[in-house]
């Protein structure tokens, strides 16, 4: 998912307060920033929301790669709007994280020096125009699986950010599928390109949900706190069940020879992705890790004079106003 392998923090606090806190969550109440909360809840949320925000921002890079090379002006305008949305999504989430007592620039610094992560999926390259279709259809599709239930998460600002994001996310997935339909119904070369994009993005998309967490202690705590709503396996299964018929409609083949409908379970059986690849990408050894972080660092460094200049200008204006009063 956009937030992967989030470790929940152990909490050693007044058992009475903890019980009252859990009771509020169980009753479906929203926790707001000024309310008492366990340190572990606060820290886990900063890590989770921060990672989600970083994913939105870094996620602009693989798609930004195609803005100047979109095949038509309309496609270019659509892609531009989509990438702009991602910036907005990052911003909503940073704001939610900030209510927990971390500043925007601190979060950015932690991304840039590698203390915080972003989703593994954005370390894969976008090689052809069909990848814009596959990213919208599969990557945003996988993200939606997680984000829709998170609209009901216990932390108020996070829930409100998710509600805004979900409203916009379905545009993302549909524009991606629209590109795939066009390619799949195009020339044989275009269809081949669409199939190639599916082949490359299928397993990395399944990895987005993270490894199985059926027996994970962290996962259990996060689910009790309602900052994680489903297990990784549940969401992955749901994604496969939804996506396979969509691939069939396109006339494309999911690159998994073990994929088949299971009459008994009412779900598709499918192969797990290569988890050693996943851990390797998380460690920084994916195809684009270095490039992505270098691009974000360059943007931050190159933008420094703008940030400083605007702040200096604002302070000068404010000082003049005070002097005039």
């Amino acid at each position: 998912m956009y937030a992967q392998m989030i470790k929940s923090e152990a909490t050693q606090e007044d058992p009475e307060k903890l019980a009252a806190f859990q009771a509020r969550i169980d009753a479906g109440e929203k926790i707001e920033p000024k309310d008492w909360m366990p340190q572990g809840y606060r820290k886990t949320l900063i890590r989770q929301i921060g990672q989600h925000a970083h994913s939105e921002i870094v996620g602009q890079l693989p798609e930004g790669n195609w803005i100047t090379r979109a095949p038509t002006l309309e496609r270019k305008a659509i892609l531009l709007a989509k990438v702009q949305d991602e910036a907005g999504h990052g911003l909503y989430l940073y704001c939610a994280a900030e209510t927990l007592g971390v500043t925007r620039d601190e979060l950015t610094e932690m991304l840039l020096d590698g203390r915080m992560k972003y989703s593994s999926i954005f370390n894969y390259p976008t090689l052809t125009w069909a990848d814009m279709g596959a990213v919208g259809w599969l990557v945003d599709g996988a993200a939606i699986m997680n984000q829709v239930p998170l609209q009901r998460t216990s932390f108020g600002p996070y829930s409100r950010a998710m509600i805004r994001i979900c409203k916009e996310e379905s545009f993302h997935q549909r524009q991606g599928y629209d590109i795939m339909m066009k390619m799949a119904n195009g020339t044989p070369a275009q269809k081949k390109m669409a199939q190639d994009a599916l082949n490359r993005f299928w397993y990395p998309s399944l990895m987005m949900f993270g490894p199985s967490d059926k027996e994970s202690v962290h996962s259990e705590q996060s689910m009790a706190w309602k900052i994680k709503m489903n297990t990784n396996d549940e969401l992955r299964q749901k994604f496969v069940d939804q996506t396979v018929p969509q691939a069939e409609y396109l006339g494309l083949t999911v690159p998994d020879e073990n994929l088949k409908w299971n009459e008994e379970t009412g779900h598709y059986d499918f192969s797990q992705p290569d988890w050693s690849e996943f851990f390797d990408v998380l460690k920084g050894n994916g195809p684009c890790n270095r490039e992505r972080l270098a691009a974000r660092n360059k943007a931050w460094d190159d933008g420094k004079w703008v940030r400083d200049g605007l702040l200096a200008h604002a302070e000068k204006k404010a000082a003049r106003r005070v002097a005039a009063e």
Partner: protein
Amino acid sequence: MSSPNSAYPDTPEQAMKPKRHEWPLWEVFIRGQHGMSHRHVGSLHAPDADMAVKNARDVYTRRNEGVSIWVVEARHIAASSPSEKGPLYEPSESKVYRHPTFFDIPEEVGAM
């Protein structure tokens, strides 16, 4: 003037960090198309009010969500605290007569 803490009106004091030289935080309020009040939609960082309005337009009205934008620097918002919940809101709980449904009006009187 040094830049204020980017603490939300709702951020607990113990969670606040020492001041950093960052763009301040602004709360954004938008009035939709149908004559409703301005409504809080979210926050953003900007160096000053003009830029905050411009950024709010880019971030919060990309799909015709509004016809008017207000921004206010977060540090200027005074907020009630959760510990005041009882004294502030409990008094109204017992005053059921403040709701129109408290009064039984006979059907033959008609709509009221």
